[in-house]
């Protein structure tokens, strides 16, 4: 082992509203040396942060507020520490969500999360093709590669979009603003291409 040359320190937020074990395993496979934590001080000390989430935006946001991790995330975003939100973690980055009533999000990225407006089955479940611009998060990935999505809510038409997909209509598959990244799909469940996205984040 060459120490820091072969692994990169990443902090994974240990949210109860997430499948943390799966993401942890794949982040390690991507070369991350992980600290899994729900301590806001540990978040503030981080070099890189991953914010996972599944299920309810409202429950996830309540937990972030209760633990004060919300403020810690805003603070590290100001310092340009790289942050990656996954699925509901991605949705939490935006201004608000209409999941139940309107709930404020972290407000790190402009836009609003709302229910998929489509006649297609909701939740969307499956491998949807993602179109991206030249963002570094998608380095080495073929255009139109399918990633695994399972979601009822999305952000759409947001200014910081770096990838989109279609489900009845176009929605935001990934965003980036400065060092804040979000992906609506599950990279940890998207086989090789998903692993590549995580590796790109871990090593950027």
């Amino acid at each position, binding site marked *: 082992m060459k120490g820091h040359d072969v692994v990169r320190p990443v902090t994974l937020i240990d949210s109860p509203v997430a*499948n943390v*074990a*799966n993401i942890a*395993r*794949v982040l390690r496979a991507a070369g991350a040396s992980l600290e899994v934590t729900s301590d806001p001080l540990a978040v503030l000390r981080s070099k890189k942060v991953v914010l996972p989430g*599944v*299920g*309810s935006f409202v429950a996830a946001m309540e937990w972030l507020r209760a633990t004060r991790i919300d403020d810690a995330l805003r603070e590290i975003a100001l310092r340009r520490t790289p942050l990656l939100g996954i699925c509901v973690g991605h949705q939490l980055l935006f201004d608000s969500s209409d999941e139940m009533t309107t709930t404020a999000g972290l407000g790190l990225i402009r836009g609003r999360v709302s229910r998929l407006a*489509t*006649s*297609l*089955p*909701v*939740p*969307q*479940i*499956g*491998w*949807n093709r993602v179109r991206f611009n030249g963002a570094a998060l998608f380095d080495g990935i073929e255009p139109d590669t*399918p990633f*695994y999505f*399972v*979601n*009822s809510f999305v952000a759409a038409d947001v200014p910081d979009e770096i990838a989109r997909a*279609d*489900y*009845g209509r176009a929605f935001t598959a990934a965003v980036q603003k400065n060092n804040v990244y979000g992906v609506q799909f*599950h990279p*940890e*469940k*998207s*086989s*090789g291409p*998903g*692993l590549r996205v995580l590796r790109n984040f871990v090593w950027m």
Partner: protein
Amino acid sequence: MDVIPSLDLLDGAVVRLRRGDFADRTVYGEPAAVLDMLDVPRGSRIHIVDLAGSRDGKPVALDVVRRLSSRGLRVQAGGGVRTEADVALWLDAGAERVVVGTVAAENPELLRRFPSDRIIPALDILDGGIRVAGWTQSASRSLTEVLRLVESTGATEILVTDISRDGVLGGPSFALYRQLAALTPLRIIASGGVTTRGDIVSLARLGNVSGCVVGRALLDRRISLDEARARAASPRAIPPRIIPCLDVRDGRVVKGVNFEGIRDAGDPVECAIRYEEEGADEIAVLDISATDRGHATALETVRGIAESIYIPLTVGGGVRTIDDFRALLRAGADRVAINTAAVRRPELIAECANEFGVQAVVVSCDARGRTVMIRGGKDPAGLDAVEWCRRAEELGAGEILLTSVDRDGTHFGFDIELLRAVTGAVRINVIASGGAGEPAHFAEAIESGGATAALAASLFHDRKLTIGAVKQYLANERIPVR
């Protein structure tokens, strides 16, 4: 693909005849009112069948067409067109196009007398041959002869009705339209058999179908025009998933026929890894252990699989409580299927959806015929499968895993009738399960059954078929795959 509302007209009203009997009719009302009820926007193509005209051999409902055309609808009218003068009458009444049936097959010369964009030749097909005169006789020319003649008139679109499917529950005749794609460059307006949203998607995927005529399904509000058109616009939105299932008992993969007669089929982790390599879109694990100890072992098995794959994992079997559900998620399952416990206490569905999100909740419905079965397919639950799936959706199920107990392990094919009944009744995704034996069965479950995923166990375990072979077959049939 355009979705074209179809109205059968008789005595100035929209009707439906039972078995073509003019005395036995359902009346839906005055045409303009019916079109308003169906939310048909101006500029839409609509298809008019003049029943009295067909009976009497001359156009009758000219006034109706005149009125509808003046409302900004693009009418294609048919029924009773025998001569050039009949076509002229419809066109004079404002029809954008005239549907020409029997004559098109018997006297294609008539087609040449009008601009090709004002005529739609209509072919009624039975067992590969053309029928004429109200389906009672075979045409004098073969299907390919007629197609060549129609092509030579400059026509670009034909209306095709597969008579053998008329009134059958199996849905539109996808095989016929696919066969026509190989025979002719003509675009097809498909007629007959559309009853579900899935039918619209499957027709749109074929590529050579430029329109589909929908009557009863719209009138009976089984689908809305708006929704049908939205579905037709994005038929390839997401590829259907192919899901190998590991039936696990006491830590080993096993497989039984009709839920019984179990035999060993290998190590679950090795199987799961192989399936991911073969291109599986997701892995399912069904714990069929009979004991608490067996279930505890299954948790270990799930953990082992979750740690070894990079694709989604759905787990079911023996989930009785919200704690069981949580334990499986913690072990690495992405989604959990509940079955008997949900039937016994349906609120469990809502509780799990609230706690873990609808995306995590799969309701597994085992059915014998249309009767819901519980306890691993052993006992009837006294519920209708369609009603139960609809209820499960209301309570918060994110997906239905629908297994035909009769077909399970038989390799005879999925139960398409059951699938159509459920996929036509719910709006969430449905996984087809039970009976897969060859690649065509997967295509059928997706295309005719309306399933958005299909699952098989023994077929893949026994290496009778690889996931790659199934996907290749689907791709050849123009069904999108990952």
